[in-house]
């Protein structure tokens, strides 16, 4: 028994089966990421003053990753077009380029962007202690200017043993540049280029600390959303890469030799998925990196 319209189109709908299938799947994906982005909006609107951090991500690296993904969307179309023109060799190279773009994107995420977060500490101060650390926070000027107050001091923790040892009464933290010069108007907006923590060490007494955490998902609603959404997006990229690798391997060449149109259809539906994953990133990038 053969299912009709797996490769050729049904005359009255003008579509083959998998093309409808993938668009339906993408519709459900829109609802999935739509749910997560709504949660982002909901939580961000709900956030108390100073609770929603800005400028903690590396914008140039994010921009590069955006460019890589967009490039891969172009190469996957070229791969499909090459198949349609029955030029397998060109298809093979374009597919390889797509796969490499996907892998590079994931590599940057998993080996560069994410691990940094788990070594970077944020110290949330008790409301009563904010005054005491005014030299790092610059809140009087911020209040004057009508900006949200700073309630957290972040940077590189010099004495991580203090986290466990109750006898150590304070944290020594190598400050992020913002806290070295909090009244400098240049620090009111996030920096475009990433600036590492300075050698300027601040001592913060434990009794003034409400909470100390790394920049992991437990840090704030912002990082919770960041890790969940980029994680789920990364899982989609990984899924796409795995499927593309299958289509690039010799096993798919055999399918091409039997029926090139079948392989072209497969590349087309997976390409549609890939464009969607790309599109999600186009939303992720401004929401987390820029806004």
């Amino acid at each position, binding site marked *: 028994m*053969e*299912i009709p319209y797996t490769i050729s189109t049904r005359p009255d709908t003008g579509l083959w089966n998998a093309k409808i299938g993938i668009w339906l799947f993408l519709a459900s994906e829109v609802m999935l990421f739509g749910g997560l982005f709504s*949660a982002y909006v909901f939580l961000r609107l709900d956030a108390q003053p100073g609770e929603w951090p800005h400028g903690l991500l590396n914008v140039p690296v994010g921009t590069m990753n955006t460019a890589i993904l967009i490039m891969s969307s172009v190469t996957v179309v070229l791969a499909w077009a090459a198949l349609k023109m029955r030029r397998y060799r060109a298809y093979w190279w374009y597919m390889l380029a797509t796969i490499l773009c996907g892998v590079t994107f994931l590599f940057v995420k998993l080996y560069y962007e994410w691990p940094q977060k788990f070594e970077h500490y944020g110290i949330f101060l008790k409301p009563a202690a904010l005054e005491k650390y005014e030299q790092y926070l610059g809140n009087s000027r911020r209040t004057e200017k009508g900006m949200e107050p700073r309630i957290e001091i972040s940077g590189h923790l010099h004495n991580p043993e203090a986290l466990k040892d109750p006898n150590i009464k304070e944290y020594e933290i190598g400050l992020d540049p913002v806290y070295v010069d909090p009244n400098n108007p240049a620090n009111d907006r996030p920096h475009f280029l990433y600036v590492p923590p300075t050698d300027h060490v601040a001592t913060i007494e434990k009794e003034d600390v409400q909470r100390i955490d790394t920049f992991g998902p437990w840090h704030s609603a912002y990082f919770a959303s960041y890790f969940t959404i980029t994680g789920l997006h990364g899982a989609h990229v990984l899924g796409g890469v795995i499927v593309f690798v299958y289509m690039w391997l010799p096993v798919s060449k055999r399918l091409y030799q039997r*029926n090139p149109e079948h392989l072209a259809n497969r590349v087309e539906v997976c390409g549609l998925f890939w464009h969607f994953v790309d599109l999600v990133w186009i939303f992720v990038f401004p929401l987390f990196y820029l806004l």
Partner: protein
Amino acid sequence: MDASTSIDTHHDPHAHAGEHEHHELGWWRKYIFSTDHKVIGIQYGICGLIFLFFGFCLMMLMRWQLAYPGQVLPVIGPIQSFLDQHQPAAGHFDPWFLPRAFLSPFTKGVMTSEGYNSLGAMHGTIMIFLGVVPVAFAAFGNFVVPLQIGAPDMTFPKVNAASFWAFGVGGVIMLTSFFVPGGAAKGGWTSYTPLSDISDKGPGFHPFLNGQTLWLLGFIFLITSSLLGAINFITTIIQLRAKGLTWMRLPFFVWAQFVTAFLLLLAFPPLEAAIVMQLMDRTAATSFFLPAGMIVNGAPLHISGGGSPLLWQHLFWFLGHPEVYVLILPAFGIVAEILANNSRKPLWGYKSLVFSVLVIGFLSFIVWAHHMWLTGMGSTVSAFFQTTTLLISIPSVIILSAFFISLWGGSIRFNVPMLWVTAFLPMFGIGGLTGIPLAFNSADLYLHDTYYVIAHFHYIVAPGTIFGLFAGVYYWYPKATGRMMNEFWGKVHFWPSLICMNVIFLPMFLQGMLGMHRRWYDGGQGWTLSGEHIWGLTGFQWNTPISWAAWIMGLAQIPFIINFFWSIKHGKKVNDNPWEATTLEWTAPSPPPHGNFVVTPVAYRGPYEYSLPGREKDFTMQNEPVESAERSRRAAEPMLVH
């Protein structure tokens, strides 16, 4: 395009070679790991019915606690005292560890309050997501839809199998959660946060293998399953309709499944997003649903805060409300088929039915906040949701009215499927009408979370949907097996079920209006308001007849179970079209072979051409060509001919 067509024809011989290999499938590939839509449908059906009965058993246990709070349960009590006497020596293997783990909701044969919560949460979850949806949507949809549209199978048979096995994994995870330390999830079937973020956590619980986390993991598989199923159904209905089977010639059942598939496709993913977030809250210490300053057991939680418990409710009910229609629409479809068949009349208002079901599908996405009146939303928002909620009752009433009018003047055959269907109509009517007070913010503030709500939605799902499902089982059983189910035992199943359903749920309206809260684990004993008398009994005393009715209804299912399995071998043999029905599934052999049809069907007419004037038989099947005489007679009726 030219290239593709020429290659397709070139490709054909290979495909046929592959087909011949398939005929040699072994037993495992044929009946267990099958890709045939009929086998998958039956697998879904049997698993779903088992889960339905299991979920009902949980409720039968809870009914004891409500009628006789704090007393030792029969059966469970003796088993547990036996287990308590056979405690393993320290360091020795416990041969009874499985029943011991399963009976964790009880202590010395008495239900604990945590146990009650756990059984309640799992009753709802299992009944809806492992019972009714798999049977109503996946089982009937899989078995009947391709046959009704004249297709050889679903468009993606392997995806179909994957859908079933994802459901299987989800079901196994849910069942496993009964055996982990601390027992199954306790947060209610809605898993409201922040409670479900912090329950089943801490000393005595495994960080991952605990009730609530397993509930979330199981759900991810169930959502995947319904997503794959929904894609498959929609694509199949769009692509594989037989020649001549235009959209307005589709049986109403197909329309109902089509809309249901869209609801599953679009409503489940936001819940999946919410479930991923709750999973992150429980395992990665995020605070999506936890506000700052939470104090649990006297100690502040070490969390970042900044989350919102209300966010969960929004995402949950964004699924939750369309889900209600996922439960009822397939039942509407089944009822429509059986109603037309047994009243021997065309379904009244076919077009209105189709448009109503489409409008329901659309509106069901914008009514969800009516589950959240108690959260204190502003009057503008609640006015919007009250309006949409009342609007959605219009198409529902159109559908029910069309069904009633279809009965008018028919020579009705009261066979077993028809009995269930005729019971469905008033039962669903009661369920629907009692929902209207809940649609109004002001009335709902009083009725919310009382037994009134329980009675309302059970009237829709239990004597509504489940009656529809039973009707469908009795109706399509001869197609699946070539044999009828026993008529007499079918009636023995039907009458006690109908009576018990009403004894169970009618008094709950009264209890609810008295103010009895649905989550009291002692059934309301000792609460002043449940001491009020209605019809000679206090609110609390009503629990006893309700519970007995529930247990009797449990017994009434036994004839069905026996009948179901006995008839496979011993039922009365019937021809391909025993009900003298008109739709295409009855043109296939019973049971249909792999690939379904001997002759690829072509549809020439609408789905319900019963009692056509000037015909010998009182039914005209969809694949019967329209003769020239009939064509000229019908020229005046363009709607029928299309």
